[in-house]
């Protein structure tokens, strides 16, 4: 029955496939998995995929999309065929992520204190101090344990030669971890036969680890600190994840209106009156956090919160002003930043990146526009970028004008042919491009959730995996 199996017509061509692993020594677990997929009729896979989709919708494992006056709950499309990471690969990835998070935290401390890295000319002053995400209110303030980026999501890709590269750092309020855990639960519900007797690392520890870190960073001298998760509320598109995390940590899910600063401390309004809050894991952007310190029109934040934090009465994760470290232009300097603080080479290399703020970078980018990916530094979610090889002449000309008008706003990178994974599509199981976002939690030390969020570009040939651009996700199996 081989010909009816899931992988029967699957052909990734010259792309690197995470399942077939061309040129790598045979791996027993991968071989077993391929065999099982080979035996699994595609009709059965489709049937299970339909079950999973309905289940996700009914369970409300959704994000909310607003258009005009209507709110629609959408699921992040879930592809049942898992993405695999071998134990050796994970070792490298984990070490690389931990290294990067250490460097990000040291960098943030430095740019808000002595600015050595700027004074030594490693990173251009203007890039940091003139950055919109650089937060004056953070100057001279050290958050507990010197940790700024308590939750970090680092976007990782693999090119057609199988090389693992970092594409982007997310040091503000990275999202997506709820899908990692829910995708695993979904696999166990509808496809557990695929996983039988394979040793796949568990993803169930995230809530515990997050709570541990939030406890570690709490103001000193408190044995059992009150942690809360601060959400913009039920209409936020990531609300499901906020629910998930509050539940997994076993802490109240609060909104700005539930908190108040009084007598220098932060309190939550409970049925018994005000109760002290010690650590806030906030899923609210910097701008909205405190109308006294930032946007005065914010209805979502808590008046006086920044002041209470600076006085040490409360701890906030992630710290404010971390956006200066995950800026796409600063990203280009990450290998140098790692070397500067840690005296080590980056374990995970960057994608070769040119900053158009530099004349050479701009000249090169303009000359090679048709073969480059050009990204605005301040955007995320896959918006506003140009994929040169896929663009028409008119689009190229148009973008050239934009680039010349504001070169400092752009970086360029070679187009990476992202690795692929077999993915169930309308016309069969096809190779689709994927990336990976591992999640690292840092209190005193850094812990990395085994695996991470694998996003998959469901459109044929598309390299954009963002959910806002037609991306889906997969369960990520780290083999033990």
């Amino acid at each position, binding site marked *: 029955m081989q010909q009816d199996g899931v992988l029967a017509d699957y052909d990734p061509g010259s792309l690197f496939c995470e399942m077939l692993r061309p040129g790598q020594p045979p791996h027993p677990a991968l071989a077993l998995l391929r065999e099982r997929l080979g035996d699994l009729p595609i009709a059965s896979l489709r049937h299970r995929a339909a079950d999973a989709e309905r289940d996700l919708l*009914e*369970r*409300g494992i959704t994000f909310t999309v607003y258009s005009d006056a209507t709110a629609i709950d959408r699921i992040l499309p879930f592809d049942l065929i898992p993405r695999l990471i071998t134990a050796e690969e994970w070792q490298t990835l984990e070490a690389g992520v931990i290294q990067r998070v250490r460097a990000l935290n040291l960098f943030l401390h430095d740019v808000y204190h002595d600015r050595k890295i700027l004074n030594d000319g490693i990173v251009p002053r203007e890039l940091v101090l003139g950055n919109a995400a650089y937060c004056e209110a953070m100057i001279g303030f050290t958050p507990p344990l010197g940790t700024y980026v308590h939750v970090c999501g680092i976007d990782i890709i693999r090119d057609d030669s199988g090389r693992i590269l970092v594409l982007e750092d997310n040091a503000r309020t990275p999202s997506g971890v709820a899908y990692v855990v829910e995708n695993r639960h979904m696999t166990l519900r509808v496809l557990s036969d695929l996983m039988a007797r394979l040793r796949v690392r568990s993803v169930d520890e995230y809530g515990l680890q997050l709570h541990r870190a939030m406890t570690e960073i709490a103001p000193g001298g408190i044995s059992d600190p*009150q942690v809360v998760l601060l959400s913009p509320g*039920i209409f936020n598109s990531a*609300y499901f994840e906020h*629910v998930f995390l*509050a*539940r997994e940590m076993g802490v*109240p*899910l*609060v*909104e700005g*209106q*539930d908190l108040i600063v009084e007598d220098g401390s932060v309190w*939550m*309004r*409970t*049925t*018994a*009156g005000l*109760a002290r809050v010690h650590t806030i894991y906030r899923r609210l952007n910097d701008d909205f956090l405190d109308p006294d310190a930032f946007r005065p029109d914010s209805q979502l934040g808590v008046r006086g919160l920044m002041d209470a934090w600076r006085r040490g009465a409360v701890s906030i994760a992630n710290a404010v002003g971390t956006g200066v470290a995950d800026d796409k232009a600063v990203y280009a300097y990450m290998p140098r930043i790692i070397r500067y603080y840690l005296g080590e080479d980056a374990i995970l290399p960057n994608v070769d990146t040119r900053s158009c703020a530099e004349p050479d970078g701009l000249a090169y980018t303009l000359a090679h526009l048709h073969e480059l990916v050009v990204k605005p530094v301040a955007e995320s979610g896959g918006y506003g970028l140009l994929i040169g090889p896929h663009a028409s002449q008119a689009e190229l000309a148009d973008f050239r004008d934009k680039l010349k008008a504001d070169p400092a706003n752009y970086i360029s990178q070679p187009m990476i042919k992202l690795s692929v994974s077999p993915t169930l599509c309308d016309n069969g199981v096809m190779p689709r491009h994927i990336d990976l976002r591992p999640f690292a939690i840092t209190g005193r030390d850094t812990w990395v959730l085994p695996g991470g969020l694998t996003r998959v570009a469901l459109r044929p040939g598309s390299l954009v995996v963002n959910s806002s651009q037609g991306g889906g996700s997969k369960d990520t199996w780290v083999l033990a």
Partner: protein
Amino acid sequence: MSETFAVSKHLIARHAGSALWLARYMERIENLARLLDVTKTFARDTEGDNNWLSLLRINGDAAAFFAKHATPEATSVAHFYLLDADNSASVQTAIRFARENARTLRALISTEMWLQINVFHGQIRALRETDIAPEELSNVCAMLKEGVQSHTGITEGTFYRDQCWHFYMMGRHIERADQITRLIDTKFNALLPTTRDATIDAGEWNALLRAAAGYHAYRREYPHGYRPPEVASFLLLNTAFPRSAGLSLAQLDWHLTTLRSRYHLRGCTHALARLDELQSMLAAQTVDEILRRGLSPFLDWMQRELGALHADIMTNLCGAPAPSSQEQTQA
């Protein structure tokens, strides 16, 4: 030893309010389904229109209804209550608010509760004209009742019984107490027009008791037939009857007392005092006395007091701003 569990955990005041509202909205759906079903079943004769009108009056919705429809009949009333999303008293509105409150509470309620509400919401949202045609009405009502009953059962079996559960349960009992007074009020006005000893249509009493899910129990208690004071007593005072006002008040008392003693919520004081008065008024008089003094004013008073009790809880425990015109209250 058991006291060490749950007691030390704080409950966000706003969440307590959401729990109370969640229960009220779910109860309302079941109640509405019961009333529609019974009205439909007993509205086959020429006087059927009166029944539809009395249903509108029970809920205090006559004015809102006539602003949109000319005649109260099966189709228009069913549309008004089952499909009209702009009608604040429709099941569409109730399930929307129920789900919104459940969404607020999603980290506190069980996953099964959320899942069922989410699916139920989808079923109600999908209702179309053809689903509520007179010949289908009983099916829709059965679907609605079963949806709420599933919710109630899942809640009973899976909702962790800490503070949040107590607030949820208070919402259920306030709503039930309120609904039963409305049901009695309208029916007794309709059934006792001028003379107390007029011949009373057994079918009407049947309908009333069935709407309250009390028909069989009533037959067992009073096999000889219908006497208005006995029906009123059964619905108001009989604490063996799950929807009686007396039982709902007793349950409310227990939840409030527990919240005060076990969770040390000082904000319970006002509500407890008010509840105490409600219970004494109910206990201090026989139904004959209530009927003699005027049932309707008494029921009006109860509804107002229940509304005030709800407001006491919302203000003193759930962090709601001062009472006055709560947009969602019915009282």
